[in-house]
């Protein structure tokens, strides 16, 4: 009896400890494996418009960022390094930001993006299920979302998840 109770207690401890190591903010996105929602948005600091359809045939990254987002600054060097390798096109979705602030932010910290588009009222963000900036999507040649990173891309995430996935998708 006593041993049974101890075993049950230990099982409960293990269960709760495992629960504590999980991040409740990481909600699995139902969009992974689905086509990236279509949009057509103006480019930041330009007249042309951009739509994901233009990226057909390429594996690319869509990174949601904003100048007001503190953890975007943490991930920024990782993106700058990634852009230097020219591994895949990187498109920025400037989410609910003021144009001047966004341009100033890029001028100050460097612009790793092939281009950024402006989602001023956050509608496209809603279509992509964005709920915590920054978020990053890996989109394959057919336009299907293959991976979603919620929160900043750390060097570990880049090395262990994103880069291998790009390599796999480009085979």
């Amino acid at each position, binding site marked *: 009896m006593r041993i049974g109770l101890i075993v049950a207690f230990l099982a409960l401890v293990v269960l709760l400890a495992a629960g504590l190591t999980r991040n409740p903010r990481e909600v*699995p996105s*139902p*969009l992974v494996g689905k086509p990236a929602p279509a949009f057509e948005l103006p480019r930041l600091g330009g007249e042309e418009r951009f739509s994901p359809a233009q990226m057909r045939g390429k594996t690319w990254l869509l990174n949601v960022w904003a100048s007001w987002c503190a953890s975007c600054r943490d991930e920024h060097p990782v993106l700058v390094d990634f852009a230097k390798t020219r591994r895949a096109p990187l498109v920025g979705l400037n989410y609910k930001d003021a144009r001047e602030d966004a341009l100033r932010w890029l001028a100050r910290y460097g612009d790793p993006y092939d281009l950024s588009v402006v989602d001023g009222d*956050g*509608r496209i963000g*809603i*279509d992509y299920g964005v*709920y*915590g900036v920054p978020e990053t999507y890996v989109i394959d040649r057919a336009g299907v979302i293959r991976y979603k990173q919620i929160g900043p891309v750390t060097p570990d995430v880049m090395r262990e998840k994103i880069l291998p996935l790009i390599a796999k998708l480009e085979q």
Partner: protein
Amino acid sequence: MRRALLVVAAVLFCGLALAREAQPLAADERVEARLMALAEELRCLVCQNESLAASRADLAMDLKREIREMIRAGKSDVEIRDFLVKRYGDFVLYRPPLKESTLLLWAGPFMLLVGGFALIAIFIRRRRAAQAASLSAEEEARADTLLGERTER
């Protein structure tokens, strides 16, 4: 002096002249009532223990704006919930549908309850078994003498 007082009074009361009747929170109360009924059942993803109705987070305000527009466009509650589930998953629903991935969520509490009752039943049965162990006549007599000695002392 009197003129000065008049000026002061005019300045003090000009706010009243500009004040207008309080605007209702939303133009259409029926839209708002449906929005609130829906939003009570939806989770805010930024502040996860708050409903969309209660949350003042930026994203919650945006989502309420979207829902308001969908209501005006004549969308049904089911369509609106589908719109959100497609983007954010079952997690946005406070009452997610019963399916494979949510089975443990729905059945878990009942499993724990049944487990708890089973434990109590085992415990009670063991205690009864322990109590039922009775003494033989010889032991009884000995116990009596021991107890008797003790009370006499």
